[in-house]
């Protein structure tokens, strides 16, 4: 039996080898090698050294400097990393707060067999079919100091408001780009909650809020976890959004890697950064997933 299934999984093994393992090996190879002046390849840890031994700055994260007045010197890349993490976490939380009600509404319409459900779902997914670059450019036109929104505000005597080139603009870009990845997994869990469970809850004396707290939210947690995974990770590593909405002056971890590759042409440092980021992502994902697994163990989910 095992042998037969082994043969069936052959195409998948090729797929994994070509698209996952080979690029990873290549990145690892770049991270630990460099060329000398004569063009000879040699093993080195210089990439990792560059990351941790470069110029240091005062860490200002969670108000460490601005509020507590602490002067902690850290390598530049650490601040870039922490900045990326903070923005990604905030964007993920906002996506969750916006996405959950939307997913709930869509699921409710779908369960009620309303035609509008499919159309609204289509509208939710549609932006994902368009080029992310164009969509993000569109936000530039909206948010510019002379853009559509500021012109409108100007007519009301407000502004111009600086939307772009700051945390707000980048956070907005992330939420906008990744919101569908939050809505879809939550939606797909919510539509599977049988309406009779909600009726049973209300039959046993629960009002709507109690039902939401004790039935709907616990049952939708797997969708919430997978939504968090799907938003946090790309938000953490994106370079396109900070590049465009940050006006090229904004440095997140994604941009740092992109610059090493495309501008400094330092593949060694870029690859070393990529590997460190990958390790962080794998660790945080395993933490989230273990949490999710524990929650579902407890409640006997799925």
């Amino acid at each position: 039996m095992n042998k037969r299934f082994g043969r069936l999984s052959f195409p998948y093994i090729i797929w994994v080898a070509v698209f996952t393992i080979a690029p990873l090996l290549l990145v690892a190879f770049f991270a630990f090698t460099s060329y000398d002046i004569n063009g000879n390849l040699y093993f080195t840890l210089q990439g990792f050294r560059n990351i941790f031994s470069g110029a240091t700055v005062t860490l200002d994260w969670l108000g460490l400097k601005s509020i507590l007045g602490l002067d902690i010197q850290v390598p530049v890349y650490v601040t870039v990393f922490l900045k990326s993490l903070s923005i990604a976490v905030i964007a993920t939380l906002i996506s969750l707060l916006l996405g959950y009600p939307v997913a709930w509404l869509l699921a409710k319409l779908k369960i009620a067999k309303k035609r509008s459900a499919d159309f609204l779902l289509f509208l939710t997914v549609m932006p994902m079919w368009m080029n992310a670059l164009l969509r993000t450019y569109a936000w530039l036109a909206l948010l510019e100091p002379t853009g559509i929104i500021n012109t409108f505000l100007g007519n009301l005597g407000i502004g111009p408001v600086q939307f772009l080139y700051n945390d707000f603009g980048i956070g907005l870009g992330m939420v906008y780009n990744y919101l569908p990845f939050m809505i879809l997994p939550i939606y797909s869990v919510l539509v599977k909650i049988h309406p009779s469970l909600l009726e049973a809850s209300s039959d046993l004396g629960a009002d709507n809020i109690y039902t939401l707290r004790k039935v709907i939210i616990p049952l939708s947690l797997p969708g919430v976890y997978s939504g968090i995974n799907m938003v946090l990770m790309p938000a953490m590593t994106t370079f396109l959004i900070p590049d465009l909405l940050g006006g090229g002056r904004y440095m997140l971890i994604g941009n740092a890697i992109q610059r090493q590759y495309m501008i400094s042409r330092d593949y060694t440092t870029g690859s070393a950064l990529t590997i460190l980021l990958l390790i962080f992502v794998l660790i945080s994902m395993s933490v989230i997933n273990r949490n999710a697994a524990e929650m579902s163990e407890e409640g006997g989910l799925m």
Partner: protein
Amino acid sequence: MENIEKADQLKKNNRVRLLTRERSKTAMIGTQLSDKTGQSHIIELVGVNKSFGEVQVMRDITFYIRSNEFLTLLGPSGCGKTTTLRVLGGFEQPDSGTVTFEGHDLLPIPPHERELNTVFQRYALFPHLDVAENVAFGLQIKKLPQGEIDSRVSQMLSLVKLDGYGARAIDQLSGGQMQRVAIARALVNLPKVLLLDEPLGALDLKMRKEMQIELKQMQRELGITFVYVTHDQEEALTMSDSVIVMNEGAIQQIGRPIDIYNEPRNAFVADFIGESNIINGRMHEDFRVLICDKWFPCVDRRHENEEVDVVIRPEDIDLVKPADNLLNGIVTSATFKGVHYEMIVEACDLEWLVHSTDHKAEGSEVGLSFGPDDVHIMVKSAFSPMRGKSDQDSASHESERGADYE
């Protein structure tokens, strides 16, 4: 000949026994009623109508439910029985009509404030909670002290014979166990009325029979009014104090199980409850009905409309030697059914279903013999048959329910 007489005697004895048993039961119901005459009707429905789009699923539904009785709503799928139950539970609002609960208008009260609990068709247990947490759900909402919740939950679990299952996950339970959890979860709140929506539908036959007896016992012990929805006529007859037969959104008959079986009010009820032969007949005068151009004595008076439905139960027909004053035919099939033989007789272009302990071989010529008591005369209705033999298993059409929920 001897055989026939013996079988006849046996059947009569049986019926006498049945009747006496039924009489004692009536007496019991009677005393129950007189005990609490003040609140004998816990729920009353008057003129309730409900439509889903074009389809009217409840037509002028009017009935009452006595305190502490086991009432069954019986009918084929789509007859409106589940909708009626959902109106009581508060999950559907009727288009018109009134529903009162202990004399108060029930309709404006939301489901979570009604003093009724429901056992849902597919149990609707919370998959993220274990057995004890499921049962405790209602008590937790009432914010009872944890000690009391725990003791009531374990008490209830032992009532449904699930001691020690409290920490089990729902997906580790069998269908019968889930069923018991669903019943415990509803009963632990001590509702005045328990609504049960085909609770045994997903169980196998043996389990179903066991649960029928247990449910009836629980109902008696707890003194809670049960409103039970089923399409299974045998289930209805076994468990109920009263049965309401419904079809196409309308009530066909209300009565005790024995009355509904012995005195069906129309051809639908006769067909749905048990098996029956429904034949076209004509009545020109009292106590005589014309079936297939032959006159037979009966106990009914002449109906205004000469055209009537005649219902004869298969077990009321005896197969005897052909004779001039009988309907004569040929046995076309004979099947052994355990207690009796099921035989189909073709006589006067109709197929007659006959149950008898006395076997007649296929192809034998027989006469159909039945007494005046066995001939039930009914007014013609929309359900009147085109043929002599009825669908033998109208109930089994519903075995693949599922969409019934909506």
